[in-house]
């Protein structure tokens, strides 16, 4: 019998193999296609509505392409969080729910390489969907203002970092569960409901800057288009007992980057640790 012996491959090769096949899988999932379609439909709808309103109405309302994009990008945080939650929420847990672990974890590859490959695949797949949003934003900016500001590239770069950090958190949560549905729901509830609520309520009611929340840090993605950036503002509401102060914070660019990098590093390390030592008990 002709023996075809195994060869020890490098870590980068392991990651490449893991990435390549996971990426193919992502592109074929219904959730990838559904999310891409959803983002495209919403972006097209917004742009069509603006065109219907007329160029004069839009240019008089926003004055500059920066102001236009600042408005257009208001939903980017929600979109990124939704995409990353659905693509990353089941990335690890799916191994332990199905018998896929018996196929993939007996291959001669480090679990850390498998996870990093999947993570990069999720990052690229998520970015492809978010790119649709940016394409329509750029189209709108060109149509109404005949220009795209330099901050557009910065925003794309920050989006990639935000996707990376949200996926890092999603992968960690996914590594804690043995059921992909449960982990996806947990990630969606945390990222789409709990964290946005906290990042709105903490400044408003206890005047606390939510510097530890990823949704807060992610706001720099659209804040780069802001023409009148204010880090802190507050309004006083009259009450029977006197007045009540409601505060609002916006992250500085560097602060936002630090928050995103913090999430990326801490939760990636935690996900790697959990996955490495997780046992296939079912």
């Amino acid at each position, binding site marked *: 019998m002709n023996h075809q012996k195994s060869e*020890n491959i490098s870590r980068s090769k392991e990651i490449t193999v893991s990435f390549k096949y996971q990426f193919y899988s992502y592109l074929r999932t219904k959730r990838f296609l559904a999310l891409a379609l959803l983002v495209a439909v919403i972006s097209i709808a917004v742009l069509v509505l603006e065109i219907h309103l007329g160029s004069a109405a839009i240019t008089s309302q926003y004055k500059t392409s920066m102001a236009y994009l600042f408005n257009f990008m208001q939903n980017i945080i929600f979109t990124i969080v939704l995409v990353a939650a659905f693509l990353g929420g089941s990335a690890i847990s799916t191994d332990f729910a199905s018998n896929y672990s018996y196929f993939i974890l007996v291959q*001669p590859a480090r679990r850390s390489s498998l996870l990093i490959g999947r993570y990069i695949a999720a990052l690229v797949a998520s970015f492809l969907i978010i790119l649709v949003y940016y394409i329509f934003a750029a189209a709108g900016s060109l149509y109404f203002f005949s220009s795209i500001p330099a901050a557009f590239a910065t925003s794309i770069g920050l989006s990639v970092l935000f996707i990376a950090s949200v996926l890092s958190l999603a992968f960690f949560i996914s590594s804690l569960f043995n059921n992909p549905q449960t982990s996806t729901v947990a990630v969606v509830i945390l990222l789409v409901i709990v964290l946005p609520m906290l990042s709105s309520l903490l400044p408003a009611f206890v005047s606390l800057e939510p510097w530890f929340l990823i949704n807060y840090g992610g706001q720099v993605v659209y804040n780069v288009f802001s023409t009148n950036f204010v880090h802190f503002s507050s309004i006083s509401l009259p009450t029977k007992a006197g007045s009540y102060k409601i505060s609002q914070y916006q992250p500085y660019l560097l602060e936002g980057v630090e928050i995103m990098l913090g999430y990326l590093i801490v939760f990636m390390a935690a996900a790697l640790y959990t996955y490495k030592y997780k*046992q296939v008990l079912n």
Partner: protein
Amino acid sequence: MAKIEAKDLVKRYKNAVALDGVSFAFDKKGAIGYLGPNGAGKTTTFKILTGLIRPTSGSAEINGLDVSKHIKEALLDVGAVIESPEPDKQQTVNEALHMAGEFRGMSNESINSQISKYNKLLELPPLDARNGRLSKGQRQRVSLVAALLSEPSVLILDEPTSGLDPIERVKLKNMFKLLKKDRLILISSHVTQEIQEVCDSILFINKGKIVGSGTVPALKKKYKSLERAYEKIIGH
């Protein structure tokens, strides 16, 4: 080299002891049957040997490498089919096999020629079929071919014929007889008939302990048949 060694393996779960001091060592080519009733500890042993779980104490070595310390290197020369593996549902059969081959450093040409070779022996489902649409038996055959692709010197097979029809079982048994000539195969089962047709020696496990062992001819001579040996040794 082809060597499998379990050194005083103990695996405890919350309220149960799955393995209680299991030790064995095999370093010669051939097929070893790992026989015991359901829940005896067969799959737990195999999971430890392939790094899917960690022992509470003791160690497992493949070709002299401690699995819990050098998992990648230890698995490099091992083909394993544990439980009923499910390749990625979104991948095609061809992609799943190529991924397995690429993790073992095989070239595309080698992978294709190995797929072609085992396709003739095991009749794989269409290579462009999605794994998510395969039957249990088809998935089992894909997993077997993935385990055999690089012709590893050690095969660890946990009830490899489960989910296969009688004709497929015969084909597989014939293939194992061929494969054991130049590699070490550890096969678990609770079907004595299957084991005696393929294996040279047998290890009996029950309630997490090795309760007996011997070569197939010696066991047959002592107990008249392997079924009787199973009854006497396991106590069922």
